[in-house]
Every structure is written in structure tokens, then in C-alpha cells.
């Protein structure tokens, strides 16, 4: 019987015994183990689908941004404003992920950008994130070839969406000042994963005890290279810089501004 044990350095070894002749053992069956090295990433299947999404985006010439945040940080309001502000600078599309309801998708439709809704309720009672397959299921409902930029609005959640590659070119997150200064330390994987951190609701700063310097320091601690943008999606203050970043991102990955 194969045996394995763990060493103090964390390695695990298996020691299979030599086959020994035990005389006449007709019909005698011993069970043993066979250790098979797999060494595949747990998300291999997701990553393969993400690569397929990437190929489709490349073929259509569309650049994609995965937009993430906690619930209520202002992703949808930001997108509403963005669609209006970008106007003819970029042809924008939105893939809207939500556990249930079409409320956000309804709010975004009619502004001139195509919107496809993916409800994640078909997963295990409502997945808390979009994975590459869910995104793929929505792509057929978008005119990818007619778009310059696709924003994937992920499910509101600061944990799970950070783990799943959906085939995006860039990751952005929204963090509202109402969420406090410690979020980068509490949700470091999300803050580390993002190229841009949008600090939203700055119009509320006079009413809060939010310490911006400490927040920025916390972001820098976990992600020294992230770009920080400060804005209010409600008032429109600071939105120009966000739109410029979208245009830059779009051209950096192969599309020129119209």
C-alpha cells in the first residue's frame, strides 16, 4: 500500500512498497495507491474560456474593461455618465452582470450603448461573480464588431470577481469614500488585481470623516502601480479623467479614438 507523509518543509512524499511474493495468492487482490501529479490550476477551465473570449475580442477589435466594486459603490451610475460623456469618442457597449433582476441593465439601456444582461442566478443559487463562461454567454447578444470598448460590469462584490479572469484587457474598480479607508487592506486581492482604482462619491467628503491620505497610502501598500482617479459619478466632477483613461486604454490595446 502506498504511503505518504508530510515533511516539516511542507513537501509530501509517497513511498510505494516493493511487490513481494506472498506465495500462492490466486484471487487475492490488494489495493494500492497511485499518486498522479496533476499540477493544473484550479481555474484552468475558466482560463481557457477567458482565452477564447480574448480571441473573440481581438478578432472584433474591441477592448474590454472588467469593472468591479462592492455593491452600491456606484458602478452603474458611473457607467450611465460615461456612456453619455464618451458620446462619439468611443463606441461603448456594456455587459451587465447581476445575480438577479434587470434593474441595472434597464437603467443603462436607451442611452445609446448596446447592453447585454447576464444573470448569474443559474449558478449555485446566484453566483457572486462573473466567470469567463458567463461572460461568453452574453457576448453573442452584443455587436462586438461595431464596438471600440466593452465594459463588463461585474457583480457587486469585493472578493470573488478578483479571482476570475474573464478575458479583459484591463481591470478597474470603484471604491466609494463611504466605504472607509481600510478596504484596500481588507480586500487586498481585489485592490492588487486592478489597473485603476476609481475613488467615487467625493462630493460627500465634507460630510464624512474619510481620511483620503490614509486610504491612498493603503492602496499604495497593496498596489504601488495602480492609477487612482477621484470623481463623483453623481455630480460629474472628475469624470473627464476617467473617460480619458478609457480612451487611452482602448487605443493602447489597438483601437484609435474616432
Amino acid at each position, binding site marked *: 500500500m*502506498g504511503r*505518504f507523509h508530510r515533511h516539516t518543509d*511542507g513537501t*509530501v512524499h*509517497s513511498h510505494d512498497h516493493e*511487490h513481494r511474493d506472498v506465495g500462492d*495468492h490466486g484471487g*487475492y*487482490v*490488494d*489495493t*494500492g*495507491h*497511485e*499518486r*498522479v*501529479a*496533476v*499540477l*493544473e*490550476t*484550479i*481555474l*484552468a*477551465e*475558466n482560463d481557457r474560456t477567458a482565452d477564447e473570449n480574448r480571441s473573440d475580442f481581438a478578432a472584433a477589435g474591441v477592448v474590454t474593461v472588467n469593472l468591479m466594486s462592492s455593491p452600491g459603490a456606484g458602478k452603474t451610475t458611473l457607467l450611465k455618465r460615461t456612456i453619455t460623456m464618451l458620446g462619439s469618442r468611443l463606441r461603448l457597449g456594456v455587459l451587465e452582470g447581476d445575480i438577479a433582476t434587470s434593474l441595472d441593465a434597464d437603467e443603462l439601456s436607451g442611452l445609446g450603448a448596446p447592453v447585454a444582461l447576464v444573470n448569474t442566478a443559474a*449558478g*449555485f443559487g446566484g*453566483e*457572486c*461573480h462573473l*466567470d469567463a463562461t458567463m461572460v461568453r454567454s452574453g457576448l453573442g447578444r452584443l455587436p462586438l464588431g461595431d464596438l471600440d470598448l466593452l465594459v463588463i460590469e461585474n457583480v457587486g*462584490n469585493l*472578493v*470573488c470577481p*478578483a*479571482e*476570475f479572469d474573464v478575458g479583459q484587457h484591463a481591470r478597474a474598480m470603484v471604491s466609494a469614500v463611504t466605504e472607509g479607508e481600510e478596504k484596500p*487592506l481588507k480586500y*487586498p*486581492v481585489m485592490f*492588487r488585481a486592478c489597473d485603476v482604482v476609481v475613488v467615487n462619491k467625493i462630493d460627500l467628503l465634507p460630510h464624512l470623516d474619510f481620511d483620503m491620505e490614509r486610504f491612498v497610502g493603503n492602496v499604495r*501598500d*497593496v498596489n*504601488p502601480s495602480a492609477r487612482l482617479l477621484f470623481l463623483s459619478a453623481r455630480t460629474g466632477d472628475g469624470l473627464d479623467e476617467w473617460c480619458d483613461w478609457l480612451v487611452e486604454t482602448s487605443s493602447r490595446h489597438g483601437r484609435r479614438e474616432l
Partner: protein
Amino acid sequence: MHELALCQAIVDTVTRHADGQRVERVEVRIGHFRQVVPDSLLFSWDLLVDGTELSGCTLAIDHVPAVVECATCGGATTLDLPILVCNRCGSTDVKLVSGEEFLIASIDRAKEVC
């Protein structure tokens, strides 16, 4: 929160590598910086494999500490929080050498030995 989805991915990969044989143990290697709650993963595992061909199969979680190596002084630091800094000299010119693993390392298949 996404442990059930991760477990489903583990089940799919293990089933593919099982080659029709009974699998008794699966070892996964998960880095400290991954947001996986071991208890949730084990709970999800039991839930998913119950009544399937993987029923009774053990999920072993190998937790890999997060370690950075310093380019300035050459020191190695084990981190709890993902603040990438060298504990010895304070430099932030460090490279993460472990802590982001997310692997199915191996499976133990039952083998009939005559």
C-alpha cells in the same frame, strides 16, 4: 463565497484525471494570498462529492505561505498582509516568490495490485 464554484472546477479536473478509477485523495495547493476559506472549501467539497463516484474522497489543502525575496538585501520575508515589503531592510523592491498558488497538485488513485 466562491468556494462552491472552485470545488466544482476541482471535481471536473479530478474526474478527468481519474481515468475511470476510484480517487481516494486530492491534494490542492493554495497560496496565502488567495481568498479561499479552507473550511468553506471542505464543506463545499463534501456537499459536491456526496453520492457521486468521488464520495469519500479526501480533499487535502496544502497552504503555501506568502514569501517575498528582497532585491536589495537578499532577505526572505513571510507576509501575512499583502504589503510587499522586506522585513529585514524595509525595501519595497521585492519579488513575490510564493503565495499565489492555486493548483490541483496530485490525486491518489486506487490501484489494484495482484
